[in-house]
């Protein structure tokens, strides 16, 4: 077991967004969380990553740390990240004046330090990052630009996947990574995500559309509506949703 979301109810400013959610994710699995806008998909990934605006009022989130399922309520977001949880942002944030490479280097070395590994010097780190760029069709000049500043939508998403590949998380939560991408960029991003796939890693994709799932094959699909999981299934559920939309599922839950 890698991640266990047990009966989680979460709210922001006293509005309940998630209502008794249960999900279990094992290493090696790919899960897709789907649902119409405003269903709570993004909230779920933020709650797992530890966003301070969301309060878990009921239930708990457990994550495998040193082989043991551990309640992570008390862990700060940076501690969760260092344990191997990665959140790919739907809207990556700009940090003016800080170069991409400096930012990634800080993150990478924080991880090294946590794992008791030796930190990497600037030169070696740059070489390491450069080795990942072709896969994402990214230029080296990305590294010396300010974090996400002036990046196009596609560039921002590629930059998220680049960070994911550098940090090699055990659990990648990718929030609407496909939104705003043209088909070529979508393929590139999917290709990047697929290189993370292994029996040691798990991926949770949060997405509105099934087209991403043509490129990243999910093992499980969950449909979220009004903060509840109203249906779970395999890949065929996503295809059914594409054909029929969400309405036939939602009817019973209105």
């Amino acid at each position, binding site marked *: 077991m890698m991640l266990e979301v047990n009966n989680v109810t979460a709210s922001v400013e006293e509005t309940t967004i998630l209502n008794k959610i249960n999900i279990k994710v094992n290493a090696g699995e790919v899960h897709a969380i789907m649902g119409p806008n405003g269903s709570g998909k993004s909230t779920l990934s933020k709650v797992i*990553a*530890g*966003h*301070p*605006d969301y309060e878990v009022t009921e239930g708990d989130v457990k994550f495998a740390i040193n082989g043991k399922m551990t309640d992570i309520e008390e862990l*700060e*977001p*940076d501690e*969760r*990240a*260092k344990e191997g949880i*990665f*959140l790919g*942002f739907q809207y*990556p*944030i*700009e*940090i*003016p*004046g*800080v170069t991409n490479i*400096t*930012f*990634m280097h*800080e*993150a990478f070395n*924080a*991880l090294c330090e*946590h794992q008791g590994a030796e930190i990497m010097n600037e030169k070696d780190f740059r070489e390491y990052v450069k080795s990942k760029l072709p896969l994402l069709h990214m230029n080296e000049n990305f590294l010396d630009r*300010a974090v996400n500043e002036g990046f196009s939508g596609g560039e921002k998403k590629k930059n998220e996947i680049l*960070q994911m590949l550098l*940090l090699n998380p055990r659990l990648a939560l990718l929030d609407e990574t496909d939104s705003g991408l043209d088909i070529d960029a979508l393929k590139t991003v999917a290709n990047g995500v697929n290189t993370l796939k292994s029996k040691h890693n798990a991926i949770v994709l949060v997405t509105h559309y099934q087209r991403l799932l043509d490129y990243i094959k999910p093992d499980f699909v969950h449909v979220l509506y009004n903060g509840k999981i109203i249906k779970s299934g395999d890949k065929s559920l996503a295809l059914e949703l594409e054909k029929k939309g969400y309405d036939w599922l939602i009817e019973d839950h209105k």
Partner: protein
Amino acid sequence: MSSIEDKLNEDYKWGFETQIELEEFPKGLNEKIVTLISKKKEEPEWLLEYRLKAFRHWKTMTHPTWQYSKVPPIDFEDLYYYSKPKSQGDKPKSLDDLDPELLATFEKLGIPLSEQKRISGVAVDVVFDSVSLGTTWKEDLEKVGVVFCSISEAVQTHPELVKQYLGKVVPYTDNYYAALNAAVFSDGSFVYIPKGVTCPMDLSTYFRINAKETGQFERTLIIADEGSYVNYLEGCTAPQRDENQLHAATVEIITLDNAQVKYSTVQNWYAGDKDGKGGIFNFVTKRGLCSGINSKISWTQVEAGSAITWKYPSCILKGDNSEGAFYSVALTNNKMQADTGTKMIHIGKNTKSTIISKGISADDSENVYRGEVKIMPSATNARNYSQCDSMLVGDKCSANTFPYIDVKNNTATVEHEASTSKISADQLFYLHSRGIDNEKAISLIVNGFCKDVFKTLPLEFSVEAVKLIEMKLENSVG
């Protein structure tokens, strides 16, 4: 016991006091004290006259009220105007003969002075309360003709230069504290870089206030002769006390044809505690005169201390093609108040000025940028670029920008950009979600914000500045 308060107090690690026997003049300010200071320093008659004129002028002035800061009334009769370590005697000594207590003080502040330990590549003049204790690397500098000594010494050894330039850039009539400083200045640094000489090392002055209830009034004069160059650095600290203390300095810089002076400050006077008790009132007049053609003066400041700061390092661009620059990071936290900025006065043709100001306010503090760009009728093709950015940390602090632009020549180009931002929770969460802890995250964001200024500092200074800013903000965010 380790309360939050202890933690906060720990943060000002320069706040210790040196226990040392002092020689002080009685408290209070009158012509007798002014005369006593002058006599003590065996000054020539013209300088005593100058001081007395300044004092009489000061008596006619009232305390300024235009500033944004709230300044409690200052009792000028209740201050010591002259205080020095007794062990110093009346004549300057070699640094190796200093009282071991004083050597230890500066060593603790990170400024080793003894011959074996002194920092290579930087000459340091150390000013302790009212006197300069000495200057390192003096002999080496003399070999290339560079004069770097205390201003009291320069009055004796280079009276013609002092007489020619003192008060020429900042006349005592300029403002209240300039008048006060001219009357009672006790020491400071003097620099003369001869024609065509690039100063072989950085010069720096370290100001330390130690004695209680004592005002520090230092005076610095830097003269860069034709075609010369110098990089000058300034640092300052003071003990942590519950009473406010006054520091009213005057700095004058003159550059002749083709000369360049870069002046950098890391100001870290004690800022008071979190309730605003104690701290230094830092009321400083700094001004440079680009008197020669193609000459350049740049001011870089990192203002991170003092309970109240008023400071406007300025440039008078008189020589044709001369250039002035002002790069500033001003950080305020707790109850600090900073009102700082610059004046760029364009007189010569093709003169150019750049202003980059970054204000960071946290907690209950107030941070003001106040600047003036003046293009005189004679300044054909003058250019100015100003950028003033403010960053707010938390929601109880304030940032204000008061830019004044006065253009009297229509060939001028003046640009002004301003922005206000907050360290957003989103930025912090983004960095946290990558495993970067809160402290590092803040430091990344703040460094990114201040980058354009930090890159103008000499390397070792910029490392110190970054650390200082990080430390100050640690308790204010998150």
